[in-house]
């Protein structure tokens, strides 16, 4: 129990450029961009004939694009028919789940090479449609009818966390400020600007229009201004991840064939998946996400690693409070202590434990079904030392983690990577 029957490696990984791109770039364009970018990272090349299946993670093309049956559609665009092309759904954890199932399939000996696709094109529907589609990841009978939105559920977690541990609005702001600083260095991110940049741009705009220039001293003043309106108090606009179109592509290979593709495989040494009631009122706690605790317990046990061994991590910051909960529930910090680490800038790129070097969902963007696979792309780049611009961490990354949540924490996948 709890062991992979053989080793599995990540041998290639890439994403499309994230953004709000409909109608110019739709599902086929995002997917083929991600595929080409991933193919380019495979040292010795990879061809469709090398690949035995395409595992697709997608939350809801049904609601966003009125398109079901995504597996064979995705695989036909890259020459993978007539091979199996199943689709996996677990809200925002969909492609984390697809990657985990590909891993299990390869470890079982059934296949040697699988292509994992994560995709979501969300902007085909107006904002109210996006809110509605995302809200279906909550308990529709009892949460939705009570008015719960996706930000609303995390806002409720935030009020409970603030009440229990004294977490503040400023603590939440620090998460957003850090992630935007990282996203600025990611050419594939949706919002490649720091919050300071956005503030200065706003001031310049007001000046240009001859208006009264606000006396914002720093980002915190800006984030406390009407430029950062509440969405679901205490969460404001800059506490929320973005509505995003994007895709990610991963190539997984067994230890028996990995060397054919590269001399530098990234081994996946731990995987775990947890669940919790999707209705938050049916859970035993509102200040921790039990699916994260369970998924990480499994991944730590399988890999023989612990929270202290993880050098960098991509965690699921769909909202700023979610990054704080993840830091605690993954065991990096005791409950209520993550905010101290954030204040110390420990999780900055040059800190002792960089988190979300990609910019996170906050700044890179959150095409929900693509997010889990996109997190693996960032870890692949950081471990290979090929992260673009100034984003590469300054030490050799030997052990890393991704943490991918679904909905308000009903699903969670945690993955550990080693060189």
């Amino acid at each position, binding site marked *: 129990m709890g062991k992979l029957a053989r080793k599995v490696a990540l041998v290639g990984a890439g994403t499309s450029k994230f953004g709000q791109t409909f109608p110019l770039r739709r599902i086929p364009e995002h997917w083929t961009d991600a595929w080409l970018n991933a193919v380019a990272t495979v040292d010795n090349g990879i061809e469709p004939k090398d690949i035995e299946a395409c595992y697709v993670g997608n939350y809801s093309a049904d609601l966003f694009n009125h398109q079901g049956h995504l597996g064979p559609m995705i695989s036909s665009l890259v020459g993978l028919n007539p091979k199996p092309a199943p689709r996996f759904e677990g809200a925002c954890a969909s492609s984390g789940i697809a990657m985990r199932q590909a891993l299990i399939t390869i470890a079982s000996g059934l296949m040697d090479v699988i292509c994992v696709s994560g995709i979501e094109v969300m902007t085909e529907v107006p904002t109210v449609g996006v809110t509605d589609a995302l809200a279906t990841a909550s308990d529709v009978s009892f949460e939705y009818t*009570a008015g719960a939105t996706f930000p609303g559920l995390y806002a409720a977690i935030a009020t409970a966390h603030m009440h229990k541990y004294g977490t503040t609005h400023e603590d939440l702001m620090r998460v957003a400020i850090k992630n935007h600083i990282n996203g600025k260095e990611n050419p594939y991110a949706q919002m490649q600007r720091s919050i300071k940049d956005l503030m200065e741009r706003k001031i310049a705009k007001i000046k240009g229009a001859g208006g009264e220039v606000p006396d914002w001293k720093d980002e915190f003043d800006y984030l406390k201004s009407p430029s950062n309106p509440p969405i679901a108090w205490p969460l404001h606009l800059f506490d929320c991840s973005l509505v995003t179109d994007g895709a990610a592509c991963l190539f997984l290979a067994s230890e028996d064939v990995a060397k054919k593709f590269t001399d530098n495989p990234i081994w996946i040494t731990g995987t775990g998946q947890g669940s919790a009631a999707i209705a938050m009122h049916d859970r035993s706690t509102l200040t921790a996400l039990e699916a994260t605790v369970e998924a990480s317990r499994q991944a730590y046990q399988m890999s023989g690693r612990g929270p202290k061994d993880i050098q960098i991590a991509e965690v699921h910051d769909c909202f700023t409070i979610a990054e704080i909960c993840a830091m605690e529930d993954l065991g990096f910090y005791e409950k209520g202590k993550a905010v101290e680490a954030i204040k110390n800038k420990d999780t900055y790129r040059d800190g002792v434990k960089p988190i979300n070097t990609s910019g996170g969902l906050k700044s890179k963007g959150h095409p929900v079904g693509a997010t889990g696979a996109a997190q693996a792309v960032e870890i692949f780049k950081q471990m290979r030392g090929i992260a673009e611009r100034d984003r590469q961490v300054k030490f050799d990354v030997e052990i890393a983690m991704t943490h991918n949540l679904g909905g308000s924490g009903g699903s969670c996948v945690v993955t550990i990577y080693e060189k």
Partner: protein
Amino acid sequence: MSENENENEITINNYLKYLSEGKLMGSKCKICGHVDVPARKLCSKCIKPENEWIEMSGKGKIAAFTSINVGTPYFVKKGYDRKRPYVFSIIKLDEGPMVSAQLVGVDESHPETIKIEMPVKVKFLKVEVEGLPEKVDLGFEPA
């Protein structure tokens, strides 16, 4: 009554029927005594199908909440928007279970005045909005 209906069976439909009559109903397990709200067929603790209906006192405390400025289409239809936010809450009932409900009778535009652990009592919210079926939604208000 059709073969799909049973007056006493613990179903979502019967739970909602009770709600429309002004009753917040849970289920109590005859084996282990555990109470679930909303009522459910299998006890969430021992997973045995020996639950019976039990009416809740309707008293509880706020466990978590949020004032929502960008609402669901359902609440937008009910007339809420950026200028008129509504409060979604999770209430811990005196009997133990938690439920999700709209919180009314509070200052939605000044959510910092709403406090966790504040005592609340049930309020049945009659929905009479053009284009929506007439129904009762679960609500709470300060006790």
